[in-house]
Structures are given as C-alpha cells and as structure tokens.
C-alpha cells in the first residue's frame, strides 16, 4: 500500500503559507500607508493654495470696509489720468500702458530665415 506523503512544492519551500501571508500583509500595509501619506500630502498642497486665497479675500474685505471696493474708486489711479491729461485706453495712457504681441512660432519664418 502506498503511503501518502505531503511534500511542499518548490516555491512553497521557499515561502510557506504563513510566510506568504506575512509578506503580502506587510507589502499591502506599506503600500497603504505610503499611498495615504502621498494622497494626504497632495490634498494638503491645495490646502496651502486655499489658505493663501483666503488671505487675499480677507484683504478684499478689509479694503471694502474703507470703501475701496472697485478699481475706479482708487484716488491715486484717477490722479494719474488727471495729472497726465489722458484718458483710459487713449493717447498717452495707450502709449505707456498697452503693448503688442509677437507670433513667436513664426519669428524665424517672418524674418526670411528658414
């Protein structure tokens, strides 16, 4: 009569059932913790942005309390136009405060060098 003999397969010899559980468990835990930390930090990155945005909206409210809400209520800005005898988007204001743009992708082509 043949006797039943239990032998582990080659891989099982290297890593038994308990060993396998141990390794998968630790790996899963490590991935979980790191993943959480990374997600948490990316979340916190927007927290920094939100905090700075809140700071500027707070500044807006402080200005509004002094009746400085809209740009045309800024006395210094209006004084510029009065002192320089100019109007928005016209004449001197246009010369000093407006600009033009360059189609960069075409700079080389437009200058005749290929």
């Amino acid at each position, binding site marked *: 009569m043949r006797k039943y003999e239990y032998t582990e397969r080659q891989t099982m010899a290297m890593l038994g059932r308990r060993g396998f559980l141990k390794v998968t468990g630790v790996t899963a835990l490590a991935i979980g*913790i*790191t993943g959480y*930390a*990374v997600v948490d*930090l*990316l979340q*916190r*990155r*927007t*927290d*920094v*942005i*939100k*905090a*700075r*945005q*809140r*700071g*500027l*909206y*707070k*500044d*807006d*409210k402080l*200005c*509004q309390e002094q009746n*400085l*809400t*809209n*740009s*045309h*209520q*800024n*006395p*210094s*800005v209006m*004084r*510029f*136009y009065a*002192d*320089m005898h100019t109007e*928005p*988007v*016209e004449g*001197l*204001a246009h*010369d*000093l*405060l*407006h*600009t*033009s*743009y360059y*189609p*960069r*992708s*075409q*700079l*080389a082509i437009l*200058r005749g060098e290929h």
Partner: protein
Amino acid sequence: MSKTILVNTFAPPPNAHGENGPEYVGNLRKGELRGIIKINESNCVGCDTCRKVCPVHAISGGLGVIHSIREDACVACGQCLVACPFNAIEQMSFVDEVMKKLDDPNTLVVSHPSPAVRVSVGEEFGAKAGELITEQFVNALEKAGFVCYDVNQTADQTIIEEGMEFVKKIQYWVLGHRGPEVAEAAEHPFPHFTSCCPAWVKNCETYHAGLLPHLSTAKSPVQMGGPIAKTWAAKYVWNKDPRDIYMVATTPCTAKIFEASRPEMNDAWKHLVKTGAIPADTPSFPDIDAVVTAREIAEIFRRKGINPLEMPKTRERGTMEIYTGAGTIFGNSGGVMEAALRTAYFVLSGEELKDPDIKIVRGHTDAIVEATIPVPIKELGGKIFEVRVCVVNGALQGLDTVLRRIEEDKNRYHFIEVMNCPGGCVNGGGQPVRTDSAAWLNPTLPIPMQI
C-alpha cells in the same frame, strides 16, 4: 511644523540676454532672458514629476533619466521648480544686483510687490500659510531701504485700462457704436482674453498665435507700474530723476523675469526721450529693472537681518500704496475677472454692484469655471445683457479644453481669464516652497514625516 525649502539660485551667466548673438535665436528675440529655470543635472534623479506639471510640455526626459528644459518651449512659469521633490530645479536670481543698488545712496530703489506676496512671504519666517501681513511686509521693505509702490495699485490701473477696453469691445460689437473711440475694438473681436499672466502670454505667442488679436493689449500690472513710476510718480510723487529710479518687481512669479526682459518694455524711456525730459542720447533703460520672487525678497530680508513678522502692524498708506479690494484679488484665480466685472458693470449700467463679491467666477481649485453675468445696459434703458465668462485655473488643467470649446463655438464666451498656475498667482513659481506642499519627498525620504 512645516518648513520652507531654500531653492538654489544662480546669477545670470554671460549672454543670458542673447546680447552677443543675432537678432533672434529660435523664437527668442535679442534681449530676452534665456535659461531662467534650469534643471541641475547632478541633483536630478529622474523622478519625472516636473514633466507632468509643465503646462507646455517643455521638459524632456523619462523615469530614471536626467531631465532637461527646452528653452524655446519654456514659459518660465516655475511650476516644475515648486513641484520638484528633490530641489533639483534652480532659478536665475538678481538678488546680488538689487543688494548693490540698495547700497547706492543716489538710487531710489522701488519695490513693486504683487498681491500674492503679502500672503506668502510670512511663511519664510514661520507664519501660517496664507497669513496676510501687508503692513508688516511694507514696513520691512522700508527698513531694507526700498520705497514701496504696490502692484495692487497698478492692478487697479490695469482694470481701468482692460475694463475700458472690454467696455469698448461691447460698445463696438454688441451695441453697434462706430467712431474713433471704438476704432481699435474693431480689430479685437470677442472672446477677450486677459493678458496679466506672462506665462500665458508667452504660451499664446508660441502655441496659439492665431488668438493674439483676442488678447487684451493692456500690459500686466507689473509692467504698467514701470512706466507709471518713471513718468508720473517720478514727477508728481517722488520728485526724482527717472534715470535714478530702480524698479524691483517683487513677485510670486518667475515668468515675470522673462516678461521684464522683453525688448519692447521700455516705454518710459521712449516717452521721456520723446518729450525731452531726458537727453535724446540717454541709453535705453527697461521699465522694470529687476525682478525678485517672494523667496528672494525673504532672502534680502534675511541678509539685512530683518524679520517682517517682528515689524509694527500699523502703517499709514502713502499715495503709491493705496489699493482697492479689486486690485488685491488679482492674485487669486478668477480675481482679474471679478475685478474687471466690478468696473465694467459700473461703466455699462451706471451704478455700482450691490454685492461686489462675484463668487460665481472664483476659481478656487476648479480647473474651469464658466458663468453668465447679467448686466443692465444703461443706454438700452436697463435691458439686460448677459456677459458669458470663463476662468481657466491652470493652463495644464483647463486651457486645452477651453480652447477646443472656442474652436467649436466662437460665441461661447465674451471674456476669458487664463492663469497659468493652478489656484492663481498664490501658487506661482516664485512662491515659498514648503515641505508640506509639493516638495513632499524633501527632505525626509522615503515617507514625509515632517508635518
């Protein structure tokens, strides 16, 4: 406790302006700074983070490969720099030049601080994120030897200019006005794009040249400050020779370094020569002489032994420091839009907005914001005109989608604000880099514990 990280900088190398080369190299003109943002090859480990945050895909490389930036493509926004976990990306710095000017008694060194700096610079000295320290900051600037000319004020100026430009476009294209006052609007159809963000401007010039007629011709607030300081303020406020004024833009932005080097940004010099205020043979000087970031103004304070958080919290605002709420929200995504709408509403309807907080256009952390703003038009007897607006909050996150929507439907929007950096200038490439934000692997590897 979170800390800020010291970002490595380098002084501009020879030929940084292309001054020894031909009229243009690639798509950069003579005079324009090149290599503002640089990857340090010995520090780059090839983690590939920078390539994924670049709005114009200007970074070459892959996992495990040393990355490099292609100069022609780069818009110098610095998002890669603040995102790099290994502090391997460096920035061109003009701090030494500014320190020298501060020691020169004949020069009026003007600091021109942007809105988003007042809520971030405190972080370099241990303040909470987003702590508003306007008064302490300006007092510190003064102690360091600067005179303050607030960019918030030029932001108001930008709104007057860009807001009126937008109103003229409505008058020409919607209300049917004709005549010399609205003639320029004929060449600039809707949709109207903002031009405050220098990274977006270079992006548009390089990749979307067909949209250039839609871009507002108004300069950015920082660039408006240069000519105003050297013409109006020099004469009426400071009583100083414009040649002795040294403008230092103090920004949350690295793209401003590029913008200041654009050769056409010398309108103050052109005007002064034309009017004979300075001799005709005066060599050309730029409107903005130097740009320092929020990180670098903190470095200047440290070198001078000044801690802004220890400065007095009160201050009488001078002529050049007065600003409105509309000016200060420029630093947030959606802020330019909100500020412009406040003034455009007033001009078009003849009355102030009852509730100035147009919260519907605020970007916060959404990539794209769309809204419709009803404006009663005075000359049509109060008939409601619906202004359709869009805010792009981060060029990488929202720009392609919005541009595709415009291609599909040209009449979809009247007014589009584009901010290159997600969140707006508050998250700019020149802002303090923190251990608890993007730089999450530095300095504690592998798991960030320093929080």
